[in-house]
């Protein structure tokens, strides 16, 4: 394991578990430490995006960012539930569920409602709800494998699926998160880095319109650091937006042939 490489316990200890934890933290407080997967501080994970993962849905997408795998399928616009009131704009219903084998510990991820509402907040600013009045668009995200957090992957995949379904949107939604570990800003953190972070900043933006639909900051930040982190995020989001666009163009051209 990368964390234990190069560190030897000084004395024999009958409970090796406590030793592991003590050895893990110094890794991130060194001045120039290397990320566990060998990436640069400002380098994102390679993104694999494909649309049309689910045949039965109106639109769907599969995203793989490093080890995180997510499928999102869109059903709609379809009739709203009878119990709901009439509304002259459309409704968006988001649901994120985890497979039982999604996390290293079986059945660990259970706070679905929180993540579902965050997904809803990120997407509703981008969708033209007035183009499908009285109906509902259902966004169902299934997380196949995830180590920790990783809401940005779910958001990006969901917006790609919405585009595949033909739902009218103002722009694609791209999401990136930045972690502050010690003095360094690390983009697109993995779970190991996230556990030792001093703060995190997640941005969801519409790259072409340069608008931020969701911004979540935790931990202690000084104002210049926030500026730097936001610039990093917006830059990464625009690049991710280009990747998403090229994926959509590819799938459109292959379907035409």
């Amino acid at each position, binding site marked *: 394991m990368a964390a234990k490489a190069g560190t030897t316990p000084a004395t024999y200890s009958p409970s090796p578990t406590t030793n592991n934890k003590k050895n893990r933290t110094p890794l991130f407080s060194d001045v120039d430490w290397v990320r566990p997967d060998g990436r640069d501080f400002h380098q994102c994970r390679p993104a694999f995006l494909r649309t049309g993962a689910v045949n039965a849905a109106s639109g769907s997408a599969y995203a793989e960012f490093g080890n995180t795998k997510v499928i999102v399928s869109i059903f709609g616009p379809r009739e709203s539930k009878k119990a709901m009131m009439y509304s002259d704009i459309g409704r968006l219903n988001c649901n994120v569920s985890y497979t039982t084998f999604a996390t290293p510990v079986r059945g660990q991820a259970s706070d679905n409602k929180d993540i579902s509402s965050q997904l809803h907040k990120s997407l509703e600013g981008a969708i033209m709800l007035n183009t499908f009045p009285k109906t509902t668009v259902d966004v169902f995200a299934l997380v196949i494998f995830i180590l920790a957090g990783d809401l940005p992957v779910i958001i990006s995949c969901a917006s790609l699926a919405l585009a595949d379904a033909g739902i009218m949107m103002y722009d694609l939604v791209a999401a990136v998160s930045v972690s502050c570990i010690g003095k360094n800003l690390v983009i697109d953190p993995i779970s190991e880095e996230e556990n030792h972070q001093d703060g995190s900043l997640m941005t969801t933006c519409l790259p072409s319109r340069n608008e931020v*639909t969701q911004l*979540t900051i935790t931990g202690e*930040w000084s104002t210049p650091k926030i500026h730097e982190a936001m610039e990093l995020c917006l830059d990464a989001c625009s690049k991710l937006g280009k990747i998403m666009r090229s994926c959509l163009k590819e799938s459109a051209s292959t379907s035409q042939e």
Partner: protein
Amino acid sequence: MTSEERESNCPTIVSVGDHRRIKQPRRRELAMFTDRPWVGLRTFGDGVYWTVRRWCLQDHKALMYSVNQTVSLLGQVIISVRVAPRNPSSDVILPYSKANGSARVKMGRTEVIASVKAELGRPSSSAPGKGKVSIFVDCSPTAAPQFEGRGGEELSMELSAALRQCLLGGKSGAGGGINLSSLSIVDGKVCWDLYIDGLVVSMDGNVLDALGAAIKAALSNTGIPKVNIASATTPDEQPEVDVSDEEFLQFDTTAVPVIVTLTKVGRHYYIADATSEEESQMSSAVSVSVNQQGSICGLTKRGGAGLDPSVIVDMISVAKHVSEELMNKLDSEIAAAEAMEEDSS
């Protein structure tokens, strides 16, 4: 223009329909002119403001909570003059004997109660040297009829998540308002579980700020009992812990941040401390939590509309300025309420 001249210029209120709703905005706006400072935002000239105001008051239907053109215009104008937050007044710190600390905060007509309860528990395996804090907000139906049963669940989840983010800091514990290591009693075996519960009693907009202030006040009022640890016979057994009845540890709340919500209304303006009338016009809101040192401890954006990044940066700097004022007021109110409690007990 002095305030008397302004008052004489005010149109007489037509007492048709729900006159209470018409009167209250007027009282509030007079207070705005007389004692609130501006915090560097653009303002309309007085003349323009008054013309529009007069027109809207004659059409009293415009002040109802429905979206129509006059209300949106009113929203744009009224915003430019209201920037400073309402005075928080923690007028009563409830001597709620079952809780370790509690506070009630009133901001205008928004009223919230926060209570802190400490119980012994086991620390989680991933953080054996730290205590646990759980924050939960409940919206009572007394605040709004739609909160009956499960109606208030969505709002209470959003508020709880925002508070958790602002008060607990990053995963490594840095930047958190509450020092979790101080809650640990025996490493890996016994720790304090803090249950912070908020209750929204009356809603007039800006509940998150009021909850942040109430939690800060409740924490400063909290006393954690002293514990005596009997030595454990083997490392695997639970050590015996004896909780004393005399309150011992007072919480250090200098690191607890204060939350400031800036609501964007219309296209160009944003206001601090929106009332529910102003919130009905909101397109999006940014809640910034700032601590004593002036660094940002958390930020949440509510509402679906997109915001330009430069606007967000601007909001952060305005929030920092406003939070200084709010924190000073809050600290003085807490000190006054505590002094009153000591005098009466």
